[in-house]
């Protein structure tokens, strides 16, 4: 039932609205709304009950194993939420003067420093509000850099074919053409193809390492050399930083600019789609172009730097200073980890992925890159199962839901057929990984013996499989009351 169906004209949650309707005389008629918007009219209990019950229809980290590759669905510390929601932080106006901002700004400044250290970058801006906006900012800085040098002919950004969709989309938003670089059979970038693609038109390359294929790009040093030689810069898509936190620093690999998905590696919540935060870090060369605001510390006071103090900045990315509340959560998390804890994130997320890959392989499933180590994630391809049993990755995914586990990322990266991109994360216990292997084996059994059980899945959720084609063909995007 939709909330609108609980609605009755005149019903209200009366404790929530201010009392008297003060005079609007001052506003001339022509500016006023003629009829009320059709929002639900429900009691407070009805709203609470409706949304509490809706929430129970979700899978989530707090209720299920959620090995969604590339998304780093690890435990989101409840303490980080509570502390970011301390009344003092919630009440702070974004334009509060420095006299009333030192507590908040000191945390933000320290977060900048921590991120710079952990990524091996010279400076960090916390402004971007998600990974994709970080990518935009990063590529915009690359562009600003070339422009400042009068190097206007660089019109192309290179992107491996395995890259996340935001990479090419972000490059295009910055006015670049995108050229795809193929991947070799073992998952590394095709260096020959890269060599052919590089040239005076190359503004830079966007890479994530480990790549979205779940393997570490072994020739990263060579790639960096080649791109730099061609006059391009290297962008690091930090979505996979969890794999190498405290182990390898993108700055040391030769990257010039990076974003970090704090909602992944720094465990801020995913919130049913967001919000995230995508701070950008840069080497010295790009530092002048960082998006504003930046948090500065003069040894005594903290303050925000804006376009005024940073005239070469690519500018602002939001009305204020980005997703501050998310940044606070990441700060709490970073402080709880400390240096040792960060390294252990990489260690144990890698351990879990390699263990799970090994066990799945032993159980007869096919890793996409069997000769390689898994990083924090890995891919299996269900090509063979699809061919032999007529049950594809989607079917496996849906049946996993029945067994109480969220499905891994399916059909991404696009170049691996019938694929599962599996990221267990470091916060899951061995027995959970073992249960996943068991579930996969069971589903394969079922596919042999009662394939309709798998193809018809899910069976135990609030709905059976949904008709996506109908959704797209006859879009129903807004509820209308029955005529």
């Amino acid at each position, binding site marked *: 039932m939709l909330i609108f169906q609980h609605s009755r004209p005149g019903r209200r949650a009366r404790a929530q*609205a201010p009392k008297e309707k003060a005079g609007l005389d001052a506003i001339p008629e022509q500016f006023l709304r003629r009829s009320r918007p059709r929002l639900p009219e429900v009691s407070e209990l009805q709203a609470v009950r409706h949304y509490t019950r809706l929430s129970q229809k979700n899978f989530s980290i707090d209720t299920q194993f959620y090995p969604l590759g590339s998304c780093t669905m690890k435990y989101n510390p409840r303490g980080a939420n509570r502390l970011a929601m301390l009344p*003092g932080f919630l009440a702070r106006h974004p334009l509060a003067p420095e006299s009333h901002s030192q507590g908040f700004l000191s945390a933000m400044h320290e977060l900048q420093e921590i991120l710079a250290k952990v990524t091996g970058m010279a400076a960090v801006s916390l402004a971007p509000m998600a990974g994709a906006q970080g990518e935009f900012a990063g590529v915009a800085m690359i562009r600003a850099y070339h422009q400042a040098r009068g190097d206007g002919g660089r019109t192309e950004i290179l992107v491996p074919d395995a890259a996340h969709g935001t990479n090419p989309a972000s490059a295009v938003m910055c006015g670049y053409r995108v050229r795809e670089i193929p991947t070799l059979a073992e998952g590394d970038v095709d260096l020959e193809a890269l060599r052919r693609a590089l040239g005076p038109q190359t503004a830079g390359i966007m890479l994530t390492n480990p790549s979205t294929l779940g393997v570490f790009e072994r020739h990263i040093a060579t790639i960096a050399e080649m791109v730099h030689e061609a006059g391009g810069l290297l962008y690091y898509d930090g979505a996979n930083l969890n794999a190498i936190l405290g182990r390898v620093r993108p700055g040391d690999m030769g990257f010039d600019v990076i974003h970090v998905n704090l909602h992944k590696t720094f465990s801020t919540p995913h919130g049913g789609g967001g919000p995230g935060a995508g701070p950008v870090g840069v080497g010295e060369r790009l530092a002048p172009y960082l998006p504003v605001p930046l948090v500065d510390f003069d040894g005594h006071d903290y303050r925000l730097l804006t376009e005024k103090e940073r005239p070469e900045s690519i500018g602002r990315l939001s*009305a204020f*200073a980005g997703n501050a509340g998310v940044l606070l959560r990441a700060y709490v998390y970073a402080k709880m980890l400390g240096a040792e804890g960060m390294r252990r994130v990489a260690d144990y997320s890698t351990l879990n992925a390699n263990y799970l890959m090994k066990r799945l392989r032993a159980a007869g499933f096919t890793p996409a890159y069997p000769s390689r180590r898994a990083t924090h994630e890995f891919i299996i391809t269900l090509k063979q199962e699809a061919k032999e049993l007529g049950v594809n990755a989607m079917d496996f995914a849906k049946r996993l839901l029945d067994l109480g586990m969220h499905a891994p990322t399916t059909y991404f990266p696009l170049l691996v057929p019938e694929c599962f991109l599996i990221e267990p994360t470091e916060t899951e216990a061995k027995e959970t990984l073992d249960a996943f292997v068991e579930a996969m084996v069971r589903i394969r059994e079922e596919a042999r013996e009662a394939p309709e059980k798998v193809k018809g899945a899910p069976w135990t959720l609030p709905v059976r*499989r949904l008709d996506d084609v109908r959704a797209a063909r006859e879009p129903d995007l807004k509820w209308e009351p029955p005529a």
Partner: protein
Amino acid sequence: MPFIPHTEEELRQMLETIGVAAIDDLFDEIPAALRARSLEGIGPGLSEMEISRLMQEKARQDGQPLCFIGAGAYDHHVPAAVWEIATRGEFYTAYTPYQAEASQGTLQLLYEYQTMMAELMAMEVSNASLYDGASALAEAVLMAVRANRGSKSKRVLIPRSVHPAYRATVRTIVRNQGIELEELPYDAGSGHTDLEALEGHAGEDFAALIVPQPNFFGVLEPADPMAEVAAANGWLTIALVNPLAMALLKPPGEWGGAGADIACGDGQPLGAPLSSGGPYFGFLCTRQKLVRQMPGRLVGRTRDLEGREGFTLTLQAREQHIRRSKATSNICTNQGLMVTAATLHMALLGAEGLARTAAACHANLGRLVEKLTALEGIEPRFAGPAFHESVLKLPMEVAGVLRTLAAHNILGGYDLQRDYPELENCLLVCATESRTDEDLEKYAVNLERVLASRRQGACATMVRFDL
């Protein structure tokens, strides 16, 4: 090792299964030269107790001043139920609902949100959120340039009465695609966009015209005639509105003859705490026929195998994960949790509650302006009808006055001279429904004293008040 469940014994078993001797071996494909040494300068981990203490101190350090700043972020009452439910694990720790059947909670909520937001704007469709109001405006500009098939122009008209930070953000985001922003002046007397200047552009090719309502000064724009000029010239109309105000003011869908083409803005007034500026969320609504040009996620209602109603992400061919470099936007992670809060907020307030809230803000602003303009030397700067915020002209420089007020724990407003040099000594003030009469009085009393003391040339920060 906070948050890591592995025991020594399990570690041993797992390494054995993998067939390596130590975790280090798992990193053996990484060239040795690249491996990081220790993370110098990042201290040891803190326990939750330790970080709690630290954060409490930081929060306390910033005080809880009495705030009369608006300027794009508003201190509204948010029902306690909103965040108690939004932070339930099932909402808080789920991700984008790619597996629809395991995400009906989030998906149905988004469908309800889309409906509510479209209703509030009187538009046909709403997406499921963008980052914030400023970046939503940038996306609206990009969308308009794509969508306006009748125009070849990459130029967009933007009033100077649009929030300066919004204009800056739009500039950052659209600049690299060769889009030009042509600024429209405001009328110095009324504070709204200069209609003559607008009409002066008649016949020119623009992709779109932006119409803020209310504008940055709190002044109501002549949205109807502006939208009409746009329509007459083949420009799309992009409405930039405060969603709470739309409970009372004429919504974009009703502007001019045919309504605005795109409505966007910041959803903060719908359930997001001030929280230092974020997370908030951007919203964007449009006409059904432009939906394929829309950025951001969309949820549709459909049926399952057994014919039951269900919800799913749809029209994904607009999005980066399908269309890649040809997507309508690069956005992926959006502001889902804030939308969850906004949906709860709208359900709890309803149309009546939002309208009352808006009316209470308006009434409070009126009372505040009355009190402050009763002080010697303070007068309203603009004649046009205002909503939510208002511009006052002070008899002296604003920055110093604000500093002294802040020393008395009052944040007195926004100094307009920072962005509008011509608005000398002008202060933008705001009083939401959550300011009490005593709050207003306290502001007036303090301001009077500050003005007096500064007039006497006293070093204001040394003055002691007996409040």
